């Protein structure tokens, strides 16, 4: 990729970029080279397809039920609040919100978090990740990404001029893996990927798409390597409250020696089932946050005020109710636990093999036992799971996401027999999916 980058400007100078009505628009290349190789996006493609075929959508990860009443009320209150609710607030985070986040997470992490130095509020966790990569990854830096990974990590590394190095979670015990807990990182394999160029490692727990919730020993293993090789750790924890079967979410930043080298990313969208609010945050040592602030102040600068106010009230409520049955952070995982069971039994009943997630929004399913004739000419050259998902949308009206989209080019062939379902949906949506699957299996 580096070679292409260097040669690209010279190659494109030699031919006109665009000719329209026989008139040259620009003789030189229009786009910046940082956009090379990052233009494809699986969501744009599959969201469109699901909409076109009006499919039952268990694809993209968002709830189809509403956020809890208390945050909706807080939002309405903010909207009808004083004029300052509709004007700029503090650029690095609405004061009320950063104070709520600092208070809430100080208790969770066991470390005093400074609301103004250690917290940056962003437009969703997505933008927090962007700030982290842009602020801290330079040309030539290597970034280790644990696969399967939320797809944006790779283009963000690339756009920052870095090189992505992949380490896969592998199912132990061969093909009969029943739980995301059975997918593990090899310590040796991870250590072997570290070079003098390695700047950071990106982990996601609970993991999207697998649902793995890293145990404390696994995080300790990663932490030991971070400390030994002096690496940064970007820890994407947007699904932190969604753990099932007693799995415990552990924050790698709370392990000894990790606070000052870890950026923890969180999301109000996933926390309060309001993905459309796009409020997220990064929490870390002020020494790292200050660099991210520079990216933030030169890219979006402020985030919307009213939504931040509402999220702040949400966290204050949860602070008081933490650990009690009234806490949304107890109730949501309990509800999702039941939906997870429902989807899993429905998939099993038609002969599919789901991998039970210990956490998160998603469940992956092994489709290798399914026999279908994927005779769609338009998808001939794509990987098996991409073809299968498109066939499932077009022929059965059910939308999912192909799992190889979450793997690197070098490993995607090994993992092209899985598709990803989102179970954070109304029971009626899950039932509609069940109906489609049942009809399909009965036909065979």
């Amino acid at each position: 990729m580096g070679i292409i980058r260097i040669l690209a400007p010279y190659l494109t100078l030699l031919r006109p970029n665009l000719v329209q009505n026989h008139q040259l628009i620009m003789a030189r290349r229009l786009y910046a080279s940082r956009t090379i190789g990052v233009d494809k996006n699986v969501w744009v493609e599959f969201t469109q397809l699901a909409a076109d075929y009006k499919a039952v959508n268990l694809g993209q990860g968002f709830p189809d039920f509403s956020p809890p009443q208390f945050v909706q009320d807080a939002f309405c209150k903010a909207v009808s609040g004083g004029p300052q609710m509709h004007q700029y607030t503090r650029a690095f985070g609405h004061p009320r919100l950063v104070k709520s986040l600092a208070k809430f997470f100080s208790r969770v992490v066991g470390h005093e978090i400074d609301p103004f130095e250690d917290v940056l509020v962003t437009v969703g966790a997505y933008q927090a990740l962007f700030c982290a990569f842009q602020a801290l990854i330079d040309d030539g830096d290597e970034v280790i990404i644990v696969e399967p990974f939320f797809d944006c990590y790779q283009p963000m590394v690339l756009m920052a001029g870095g090189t992505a190095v992949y380490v896969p979670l592998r199912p132990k015990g061969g093909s009969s893996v029943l739980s995301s807990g059975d997918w593990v990182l090899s310590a040796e394999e991870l250590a072997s990927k570290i070079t003098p160029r390695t700047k950071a490692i990106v982990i996601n727990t609970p993991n999207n798409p697998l649902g793995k919730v890293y145990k404390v020993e696994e995080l300790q293993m990663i932490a030991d390597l971070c400390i030994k090789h002096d690496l940064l750790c970007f820890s994407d924890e947007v699904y932190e409250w969604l753990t099932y079967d007693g799995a415990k979410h552990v924050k790698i930043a709370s392990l000894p020696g990790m606070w000052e080298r870890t950026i923890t990313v969180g999301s109000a969208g996933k926390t309060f089932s309001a993905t459309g609010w796009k409020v997220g945050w990064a929490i870390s040592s002020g020494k790292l946050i200050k660099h991210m602030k520079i990216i933030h102040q030169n890219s979006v600068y402020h985030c919307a005020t009213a939504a931040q106010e509402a999220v702040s009230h949400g966290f204050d409520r949860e602070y008081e109710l933490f650990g009690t049955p009234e806490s949304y952070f107890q109730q949501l995982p309990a509800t999702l636990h039941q939906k997870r069971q429902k989807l899993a039994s429905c998939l099993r009943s038609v002969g599919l093999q789901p991998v039970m997630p210990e956490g998160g929004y998603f469940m992956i399913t092994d489709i290798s036992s399914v026999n279908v004739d994927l005779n769609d000419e338009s998808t001939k050259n794509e990987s098996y799971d991409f073809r299968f998902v498109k066939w499932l949308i077009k022929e059965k009206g059910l939308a999912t996401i192909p799992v190889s989209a979450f793997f690197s080019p070098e490993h995607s062939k090994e993992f092209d027999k899985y598709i990803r379902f989102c179970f954070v949906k109304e029971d009626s949506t899950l039932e509609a999916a069940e109906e489609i699957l049942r009809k399909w299996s009965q036909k065979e």
Partner: protein
Amino acid sequence: MSYTRRILNAFGFTCRSFPTNCRRFCTSQSVMASRHTHAKRIEGLDKNVWVAFTSLAADPSIVNLGQGFPDIPPPSYVKDALAKAASVDRMNQYTRGFGHPSLVKALSQVYGKVYSRQVDPLKEILVTVGGYGSLFSTIQGLVDEGDEVIIVEPFFDCYVPMVRMAGAKPVLIPLRPKPGKKTVSSADWYLDPDELSAKFSSKTKAIIINTPNNPIGKVFTRGELQMIADLCIKHDTLCFSDEVYEWLVYKGHQHVKIATLPGMWDRTITIGSAGKTFSVTGWKLGWSIGPEHLIKHLQTVMQNTLYTCPTPLQEAVAQGLLLNYKLMGQPDCYFSSLAEELEGKRDHLAAILQEAGMSPVVPEGGYFMLVDVTPLNQDLSHMGDDEAYDYKFVKWMIKEKKLAAIPVTAFVGEESKEQFEKYIRLCFIKVDHKMSMGKNVPPFISFWFAAMETNLITF
């Protein structure tokens, strides 16, 4: 690893190889320090005038005419639309990444009319996080390392750091006061055609213009824009036109879109803002409009930076746009009624400032006013030598007169500082004391204006 770096490393030439070798001898503390270094792209970009002056002006006893946001309320129908949107389940979840469908359709309608051309809602519009986010995706998508970007001074302060963050070189050209004229209006500043022409080089990728201009308030005439357009076409460059104040144009002046000039649509990105259009800066929604072959690169940046903008806010802006689309050309259309309301405030502030002995520069558009403080002859030598006069003046004015403004040299490069250091910028989209009678307005604002009028506060 890049090819170049591999070769250089082999010969031990890259300074990067030194920390690697040095690590064996260094203590773990200094190794940690070297690893947590920031990326080069943020070097020198940490200073920010807003961060500095917002905290100074945050004291509630200070009347803040500094930062550009309204303290007049937004129209009630946009707030109602937001509350309504948030009550719909689907509106609280992700929408289309490049712009909520109802919003891009509404933008396509409004701007289709304004541009007198079809604007494709899906391919020629990108919705972003404010005009700021629009500028960012434009520059990141289209400006490369080594490019030059011409920026007209005074400029909204983010243009230069954004261009530098993209690894490009800002080339500055100042607006100059017309020879022999006193600067009483923003129209008294102009761009010298020969000077501008000389700034174009083979490396020039784009020129950034802002009309109506922040901070001066200049509204570029058709003739001036044609002059810029001719140069863009001659030198085959892009044009990034920041038009966030497009509706705030005062009597006798007309906002002209450079993208409507012949040959310009295909090479121009035009930036707009819901925050400035509907007096809701805290909603942070904006848009880039341009030809598909340019917008698609901005969309690539969007999908790799924040992916999508908040849904309920986009829905509410869509409703606001549709409502005003129907009223376009009529007096109660917010696009024109806000300008009328502000014109009164503009004139009122100009009069007060003149009475106080300063020389206001009456803007043709926007909601800022420059004020020449030279006539006051305020001695600030006690404040040291290391800052421009206007920075010192504003700090002095905040402390002594409890009034906050923004120093204009924050909007210019080093070489132009002397030309602008006797000017400060005031924002007038604020409640005036006449409106304050009997309404819920912070008392100090009305007091300050009243005091100015009755000479209780003098300079």
